[in-house]
């Protein structure tokens, strides 16, 4: 589904991603962990097409298409979804209008007719229940004045509405209370199927008990320095990152 080869990217002349290689087959869940500032959100941004990142080297293929050549909206229409670490507040754009526009843009791209008001409402209701998203929030401005947790739930609600084939969740668990964490994880598990892949960026092993990954990668200093199974997350929880960082620095100095 997604193939990242030797990806290098910089922002404002600063090298952030320094050769990422990652293969995410259909139906798998991959977790990405790593210290603050290691480049996890940057990787997510580059995949989603944020234009302040300049890709200087490498390739990204998504279902056989060159992802880096597409506009952000076309990536989304092709089925890439990024749940933002910091969702943006947009006063004056109603949540519901925004969603209707987004859903219909994806449908138009796929050659499907626009959803009738009734069908749209039905879909909204269904997905709202899936992630237990408060109806009152639907009619408010997009994320405006939402609590941290409400914003994260809104991301997952949008994920459910847009039904992408690749979802990248950037620290969706931070800011969620324990109940919300369970609800959101259940939502993700229900959305999960053999055709969909997930990239779950997190700092906490706890999330990975709910959303069980096939693989865990550690990103440090713009590179993936270790890959393992879900047990790696447990090990990191215990030992922190220092042992990996040291090994990495030794490798570099050789």
């Amino acid at each position, binding site marked *: 589904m997604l193939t990242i080869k030797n990806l290098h990217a910089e922002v404002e002349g600063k090298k952030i991603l320094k050769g990422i290689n990652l293969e995410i087959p259909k139906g798998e869940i991959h977790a990405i962990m790593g210290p603050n500032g290691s480049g996890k959100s940057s990787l997510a941004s580059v995949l*989603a*097409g*944020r*234009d*302040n990142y300049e890709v200087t080297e490498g390739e990204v293929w998504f279902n056989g298409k060159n992802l880096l050549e597409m*506009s*952000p*909206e076309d*990536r*989304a*229409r092709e089925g890439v979804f*990024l749940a*933002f670490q910091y*969702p*943006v507040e*947009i*006063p*004056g*754009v109603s949540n519901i*209008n*925004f969603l209707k*526009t*987004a859903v219909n*843009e*994806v449908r138009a*791209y796929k050659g499907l007719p626009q959803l009738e008001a009734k069908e749209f409402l039905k879909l909204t209701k269904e997905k709202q229940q899936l992630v237990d998203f408060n109806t009152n929030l639907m009619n408010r*401005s997009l994320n405006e004045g939402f609590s941290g947790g409400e914003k994260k739930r809104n991301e997952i609600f*949008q994920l459910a509405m*847009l039904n992408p084939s690749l979802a990248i969740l950037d620290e969706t668990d931070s800011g969620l209370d324990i109940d919300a964490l369970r609800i959101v994880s259940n939502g993700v598990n229900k959305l999960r199927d053999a055709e969909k892949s997930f990239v779950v960026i997190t700092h906490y092993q706890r999330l990975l008990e709910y959303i069980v990954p096939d693989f865990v990668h550690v990103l440090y200093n713009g590179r993936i320095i270790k890959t393992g199974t879900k047990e790696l997350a447990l090990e990191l929880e215990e030992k922190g990152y220092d042992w990996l960082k040291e090994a990495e620095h030794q490798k570099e100095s050789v």
Partner: protein
Amino acid sequence: MTSDTIMIPFYQALTEDVNALPAPQDSLQEVRRGALERFSATGLPTLKTEAWRFTNIQRFLKEYPYELTSTPATTTADVANEATIPGLDAYRIVLVNGHLQANLSSIPEGKGIRIGTMSASTDAPGFAKWFNQHTQVNGEPLADLNTALFADGLFIELQANVSVDKPIHLIHVYTSDRHAFIQPRHLWVLHKGATATVIESTVHPKQEAVAFSNCVTEVVVADNAELWHYNVQQGAENFRQVNTTAAQQERDSRYHHFNFTLPNTPFTRNNLSVVLHGSNTETNLKGIYLATGNQHVDNYTFMNHLVPNCNSNEHYKGVLLENANAVFTGRIHVHQEAQKTNAFQQNNNILMGDKATINSQPQLEIYADDVKCSHGFTAGQFSADALFYLRARAIGEEAAKALLVNAFTHDVTDEIAVPALQEYIQGQIEAIMNN
């Protein structure tokens, strides 16, 4: 009727011999002569005129060999229907170059309602009392020019406690087969406790000739009366305009003025002034200007607080694309007697075009000490974060910008009290942005 159109170049007449311009022969001779004399004395504004520092009107007057025309023209239902606002249940009044076209109009009738042409209303009590009384009309060069030479327009007088049950949709059609200088003149008087909603729209049939309108509307809102006044300036390449609206408010009255300037009229100057004669009034002045190409849009506003305990609230929002050029002046005068005044003003702009410009100037003259006044100005661009967020949700760049422009203007459009009009304005903004 034959001599209504003069053939000498209009601009030359304005600058050399205004007396050669033919004034209509009616009962207003004395007022007209006085206005013409004042106009001759002051002449056209120049860039040195304080209120016209950023707008060179002479350049626009010289642009085409306009002819002063007051000959009634007519239009068709199809043309008038171009101004239709879907879902709006309203009376419709169609004016062609300021002249009422009765067969396309449905004029509200009833006890205490007098609505008709200016030329047929000079005998009305409201006319005698209020015509040409506003200080921003009587003494302002372009308004004086209008007073001296106007042919016709719409007169509305609502007696005490009369409410018009539906909005009045006033459709201005500007049409001429030669370049024309057109001067409509309106007077609307709401007596004590009367209420009304007036929505103005403009239609410009496709034609080679260019129309320049110098329109003046005087508004009187008496004790406890309320007027919702919307002016939707749908534009066209073949149109230029100076639009003067001058309102007077008395005790406990409410006046809500909304102005929407849309593409593509190359030159727009809106003079909007409100003078408060009575206490406890509320005034809302709201505007959106969405300009593109080489449009020049100048909003000159003047809130004149003469008496205590009045509230005024002004908010203008600009979206400037391409090379558009906008000017905003927010003059607020709080006289010494006008204690406990609340006067707020905001002007926010988004500059989307590389060459777009805004000149914004608050002019606060405050002579009372116990007042709350504030003003603010911003000019900026879309947040890159917001734009990326929308695009990452499959929304195309143009559509995302349209959403963000609607979001930017929402605090004005949210205040539109007629749902069909609100939807129409939001739809227009979206359509323009998606183009």
